[in-house]
């Protein structure tokens, strides 16, 4: 498969100190973590496996995307949506507590070959898109972001996202940006659409529709998937995604796949 799968980056098990836990909205929290040691290079769409402390009902680690990185300050930021007990515990974590992570995991979005690229995030899927936009920008690209939310109250980190690209919004109820889901946005109307590549993360249904659209319109499209994981390092074979080449591990051969390769 494509070149970006072959990258072998060293993985670390490290303790991070929680610098800040900020509630962004009803279900979303922003965790800022600091590590004593220098951070390794992290690629866009890579993730970490977090150990959940003090949770009687959470036995395995939980995969969470890298939302942002600050190499000068040795900090990593995570965007957490409460989905169940494990993420609920993460939302309760307080400053000064220690969080153990295995990272950086997975492959990454490939660097665009030419401008203009569209980054699409839906709901919790906006998480990896901030660092992706920032990363692409460093390489001279000027990404456009399209972020889909339920409603105005759910919109996350506007100021931050808007620093790294031109940002458009959809909300299901139309209370912010255009009404509908991301594919309903006018960016996708034939007269307007002028991107060479789409990068996306979000709910499976959104990614499938987007992938179908991209293939039909001959647009290159990479998606970051969120399968259930046990190990995160390619050992258990639990996280597989069916592809043209058979079952692939989302944790090591993903989370990023080109939609052309997926059998959905």
């Amino acid at each position, binding site marked *: 498969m494509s070149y970006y799968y072959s990258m072998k980056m*060293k*993985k*670390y*098990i490290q303790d991070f100190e929680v610098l800040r836990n900020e509630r962004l909205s009803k279900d979303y929290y922003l965790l800022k973590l600091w590590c004593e040691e220098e951070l390794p290079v992290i690629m866009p769409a890579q993730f970490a496996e977090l*150990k959940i402390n003090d949770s009687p*009902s*959470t*036995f*395995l*680690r939980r995969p969470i995307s890298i939302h942002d990185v600050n190499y000068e300050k040795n900090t990593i930021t995570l965007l957490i949506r409460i989905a169940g007990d494990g993420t609920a515990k993460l939302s309760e974590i307080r400053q000064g507590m220690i969080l153990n992570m*295995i990272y950086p995991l997975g492959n990454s979005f490939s660097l665009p070959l030419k401008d203009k690229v569209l980054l699409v995030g839906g709901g919790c899927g906006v998480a990896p898109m901030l660092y992706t936009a920032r990363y692409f920008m460093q390489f001279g690209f000027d990404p456009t972001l399209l972020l889909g939310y339920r409603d105005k109250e759910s919109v996350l980190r506007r100021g931050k996202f808007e620093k790294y690209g031109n940002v458009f919004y959809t909300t299901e109820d139309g209370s912010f940006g255009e009404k509908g889901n991301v594919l309903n946005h006018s960016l996708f109307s034939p007269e307007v659409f002028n991107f060479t590549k789409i990068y996306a993360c979000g709910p499976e249904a959104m990614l499938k529709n987007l992938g179908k659209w991209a293939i039909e319109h001959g647009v290159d499209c990479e998606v970051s998937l969120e*399968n*259930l*994981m*046990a*190990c*995160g*390092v*390619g*050992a*258990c*074979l*639990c*996280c*597989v*995604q*069916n592809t043209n080449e*058979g*079952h692939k591990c989302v944790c*090591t051969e993903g989370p990023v796949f080109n939609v052309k390769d997926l059998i959905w």
Partner: protein
Amino acid sequence: MVNLEINFNGLKLKNPVLTASGTFGYGTEFTDFIDLNRLGGFIVKGTTLNHREGNPYPRMAETPSGMLNAVGLQNKGVKVFCDKIYPEIKDYKTNILVNVSGSAIEDYVATAEMINTLDNIPGIELNISCPNVKEGGMAFGTSCVSAAEVVKEVRKVYKKHLMVKLSPNVTDIVSIAQTVEEHGADSVSLVNTFLGMAIDAKTRKPKLSTITGGLSGPAIKPIALRMVWQVSKAVKIPVCGLGGIMTAEDAIEFLLAGASSIQVGTANFVEPDATIKIIEGIKYYCRKYGVKDINELIGGLKS
């Protein structure tokens, strides 16, 4: 200095800590976290005669203090193992065993025969206990007759250490252990996973594509420990104990119950360096309690 070395019926283990098949990939997945040469050994993924895609996603469900899996022996087949994977791992200075799985006796035999040719593989673990493949696996491990048959046939072609992995999903694991001993096993390992199930109450659907799957992790430890205790009293060949081992204390409990070595499985998912922590922890325990030789602990349960 504490002696951690064990002679496991001919297999020389530098310490009693191995890794469990299917939870440690081919070892290479863990080299960022630990030095494989420090392990007593590792047991690679379930290997079958032919390539298998395994079961459809979803294959995993978390349970209280454990997990269910329904991987279904996804692997590229023994030929790819011999040609591609073996050369990459063969020089680690530890015991690399191959977990041999199958759904027909001929397949087990053919697979074992090929592995027999690999110089640096000192043994196989014959998996007659996988609950996650329709056509067999566990079926062999749940009756004495069929267990006897597969062990007998594999023994004919396989000349090195033959460990047989037993299923816990049986009424009488002792008689199965005795049967495989009788038919030529050099050791037994137990337990494989327990057949379990999980349902999502919201969607009313099974959480696994195959409905049922194999339960592993700390949840099963008390049952695994009991079985190891029963079996190790009843057979002369050594027992490799596993099932929910997370810490050095867990490992020592299995040794006390009669296991001569242990395997770390699901723990690798939670702590990729669990094996090393367990080895260090065993050393610490021995120093603390004045144990000079780990062999003193084996079967050392007091009453």
